[in-house]
């Protein structure tokens, strides 16, 4: 006796199509027998087998039966629905049947490929097909839906990833809002001297792009700004942006820089990784875009003590405005691209490396600034006492591939380590030791760069660094660092004396990644970076429809990969915007309001925020556009009021019964 009460009562005519998949299925399962057995079931009007159901001839068989025999439910017994379900759905659609009146029985991956040929394999296929037949009886048409897409895109973060994405979209004459937290766009790339493997000067390739951003009429640039709230859904996001007070009127400022020159107060420069100084009113670096300074309220003596206003006296444009307040702006966009990048690992906790204690131990980012002609030393490598270093140790994997900190590989450190060896040789001609665990040089031209640096008499030591200590000052060379390290190739401990050490620190998720994830309803993977929809097949999309992730906020990567991702996400956003609408999934949950008791069990469960409580009707409801059909809510509803389309309880139970009984 079936536990299911009632059946859909229209005149059901099922067509069953059993595929041989060449020999893939037919060599294990007696496909003709499967078709014969299916035919014996009452509801089945026609059952056929064919060598390749997915071929156009195979598809035609189905099409003809729908048109000529009035078949109104289709079962295809073939490979995994992941492969051809859409193809067969299209056959139904083209033949005038709703595509969801199809059920695929997977008799390849779930049967033929698992079992020895013979009657048992055939019996299993029979049962899978019977399950599908019993299930498809309970299928009903599902309406597909689309949403309008508002023609504007928000890009969050103005590093190379955000810049690239914004330019791609703007170059198609579509509006982009680019929101950057710092006073200037540019991100980490602006801090580098040269970039591996080509040793292009970073500023030379970045600055033109930054200028393009400033010039492009389709880009609305908002620096010194942050996204504080996002509501709505794909196609129609409402975004609230906080524009922090610059205390300088952006419309009046001409970028002459006199305020910066006249400001009597200095502090550490974040852009120079705290190695250099900047004023209380500042632009982070000379090529900043926009070229409009900000007054740092925390450092400005007028804000701290109520006296000074030197900048105001000298500003001819009358742009200084101490009364300015934070401004909140509402934006309406159809798509969002997140490009918030990474933070670098702080190596202080690894106390045996002496960072913060030993003045000549630097991080990679600090070393970038020391090499840069616009950096604190004008590009000259200098020790704490001002001398030029004669030897350097470059230490890989600091905070990466380390179970205590980050298990993952940061992917760019091997390459920038090689870059440092090269730059050091070029600048000083001194001795370089590179202490590595493995060399990972996998990009285009990367292995060649490695070979080139090997030819520059750099000493490569394979092993993990144990400690860095300061030796007593050498009478000739001054203070030296002493590195103690295992050399796994020689098989023993080695001690290396050097003047300077660079710790190549890990790339980590931004410290505020969780906050951003919550605002945008993004998932995070185990390593803390934002989670993509599919690690291989959909790396820039997220589980939040219409929101994309690019660059290092998705995971550590180099500039070429970052730029490629940014272009990919731009294409995805453009595809939505140019069409002006977007199909969202048809398989969504629905709440039967005649059964919802307003218990609110489901209200906090939806991972996509698709469920809301309608106070007026006193029932919970699903926003179909946000719903991804995961059925978390359906499993929870104690009243059985929630059912996910095409996965109703009756469909699932009928399938189980079909297989078992």
């Amino acid at each position, binding site marked *: 006796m079936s536990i299911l009460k009632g059946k859909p009562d229209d005149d059901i005519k099922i067509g069953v199509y059993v595929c041989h998949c060449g020999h893939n299925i037919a060599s294990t399962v007696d496909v003709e027998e499967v078709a014969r057995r299916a035919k014996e079931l009452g509801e089945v009007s026609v059952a056929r087998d064919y060598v390749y159901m997915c071929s156009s001839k195979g598809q035609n068989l189905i099409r003809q039966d729908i048109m000529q025999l009035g078949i109104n439910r289709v079962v295809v017994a073939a490979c995994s629905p992941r492969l051809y379900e859409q193809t067969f759905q299209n056959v139904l659609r083209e033949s005038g049947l709703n595509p969801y009146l199809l059920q695929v029985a997977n008799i390849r991956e779930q049967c033929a490929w698992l079992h020895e040929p013979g009657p048992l394999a055939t019996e299993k296929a029979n049962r899978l097909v019977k399950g599908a037949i019993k299930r498809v009886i309970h299928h009903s048409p599902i309406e597909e839906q689309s949403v309008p897409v508002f023609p504007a895109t928000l890009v969050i973060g103005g590093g190379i990833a955000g810049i690239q994405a914004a330019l791609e979209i703007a170059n198609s004459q579509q509006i982009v809002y680019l929101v950057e937290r710092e006073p200037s766009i540019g991100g980490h790339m602006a801090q580098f001297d040269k970039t591996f493997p080509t040793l292009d000067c970073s500023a030379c390739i970045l600055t033109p792009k930054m200028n393009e951003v400033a010039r492009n009429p389709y880009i609305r640039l908002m620096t010194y700004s942050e996204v504080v709230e996002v509501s709505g859904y794909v196609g129609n996001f409402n975004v609230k942006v906080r524009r922090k007070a610059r205390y300088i009127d952006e419309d009046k400022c001409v970028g002459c820089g006199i305020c910066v020159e006249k400001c009597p107060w200095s502090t550490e420069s974040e852009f120079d990784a705290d190695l250099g100084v900047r004023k209380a009113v500042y632009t982070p670096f000379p090529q900043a875009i926009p070229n409009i300074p900000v007054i740092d309220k925390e450092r400005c003596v007028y804000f701290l003590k109520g006296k000074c206003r030197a900048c105001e006296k000298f500003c001819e444009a009358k742009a200084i405005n101490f009364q300015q307040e934070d401004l909140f702006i509402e934006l309406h966009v159809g798509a969002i691209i997140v490009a918030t990048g990474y933070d670098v690992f702080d190596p202080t906790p690894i106390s045996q490396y002496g960072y913060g204690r030993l003045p000549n131990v630097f991080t990679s980012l600090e070393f970038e600034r020391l090499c840069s002609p616009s950096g604190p030393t004008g590009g000259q490598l200098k020790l704490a006492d001002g001398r030029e270093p004669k030897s350097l140790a470059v230490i890989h994997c600091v905070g990466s591939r380390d179970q205590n900190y980050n298990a993952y590989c940061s992917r760019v450190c091997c390459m920038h380590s090689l870059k440092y060896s090269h730059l050091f040789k070029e600048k000083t001609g001194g001795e370089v030791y590179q202490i590595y665990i493995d060399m990972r040089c996998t990009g285009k031209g990367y292995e060649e760069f490695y070979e080139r640096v090997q030819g520059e008499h750099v000493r490569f030591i394979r092993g993990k660094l144990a400690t860095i200590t300061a030796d007593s000052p050498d009478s000739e060379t001054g203070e030296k660092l002493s590195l103690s390290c295992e050399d796994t190739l020689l098989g023993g401990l080695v001690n290396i004396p050097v003047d300077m050490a660079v710790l190549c620190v890990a790339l980590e998720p931004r410290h505020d990644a969780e906050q951003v994830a919550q605002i945008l309803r993004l998932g995070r993977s185990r390593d803390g970076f934002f989670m993509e929809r599919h690690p291989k097949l959909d790396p820039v999309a997220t589980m939040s429809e219409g929101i994309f992730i690019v660059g290092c906020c998705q995971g550590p990567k180099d500039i070429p990969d970052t730029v490629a991702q940014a272009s990919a996400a731009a294409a995805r956003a453009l595809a939505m915007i140019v069409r002006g609408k977007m199909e969202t999934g048809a398989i969504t949950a629905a709440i039967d309001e005649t059964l919802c*008791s307003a218990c*609110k*069990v489901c209200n906090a469960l939806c991972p996509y925020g698709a469920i809301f409580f309608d106070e007026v009707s006193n029932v919970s409801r699903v926003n179909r556009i946000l719903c991804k059909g995961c059925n978390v809510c359906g499993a*929870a509803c*104690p009243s*059985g009021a929630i059912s996910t389309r095409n996965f109703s309880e009756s469909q699932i139970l009928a399938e189980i019964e079909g297989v078992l009984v």
Partner: protein
Amino acid sequence: MAKLKLALYWAASCGGCEIAQLLIGDRILKLAEAADIVFWPVAIDAKYKDVEAMEDNSIDVCLFNGAIRNSEQEHMARMLRAKSKVMIAYGACACRGGIPGLGNLHNRQQIFDTVYRDTASTEKNGNIFPQPSYKAPEGELEIPVFYDTVSTLNQVVDVEYYIPGCPPEEKTTWLALEALIQGKLPPRGTVISHNVKAVCDDCSRKRDIKKIKKIHRTYEFIPEPEICLLEQGLLCVGVATRGGCGALCPQVSMPCTGCYGPVEGVIDQGAHFLSAVASVIDSKDEEEIRTILSDVRDPVGTCYRYSLPDSLVRRASIK
């Protein structure tokens, strides 16, 4: 109009359903106006053989309470079915198996061992168990065969209507009787009750998002009077139970135990309740979740108090 012929019977039940039927009070006179009661062992002196002698379909309606747990009950159910035009499962035991249905956690032998041998009050004079037949000097004696498995009424015979409750509330009983008297019966298969939605719909407590960090038992504290009991950590089965009772228990701070059965259309009340509770446990840590759930002292008795025979698994493995 000819008077209706009505039969009432009890099978595996406690007798509460009979009391509940009498709770309609003086409206019983209205019933008597419209119907002749032809069989009601608890109240009138009609005999088995009188019913046996009746023609098939000569009784208009049979209100049958109690589950089926032995051969006599099954026999009576089949006979009354044959004699009656309309069969109504009255009360939780007939509808879903009820409290006797929890016997499906054990088999016949285990139940006999407990009842006839292991309880403290049983005299320890060997293993004396009831035998279905016994040859006495006067002739062969028979008692009904006790089954391993308790069944709902509709697992044994076809049933037209269901009146839920342990026992059904007086207003629920009257709703059904009134429909009978007026000849306005709902579609076949209907569970007759004032509400198709869950007890929450009847309940005046304020409900909000549910996040359970600790599961409590009723004796541990006096719950806030206006807030949903489930939110306070009491396992109120009201979320998974058909309303119509008026949410009497939660109104007086006792969590609903689920006697009105599942909400309309739900297959397996206990699984739905369990799944709902599991969904609102406020932790992502497996160990912590285990600790929180370990406070559910009697999971089957909590989730399936009245519906184990009606669940998808029906019973524990028989061995």
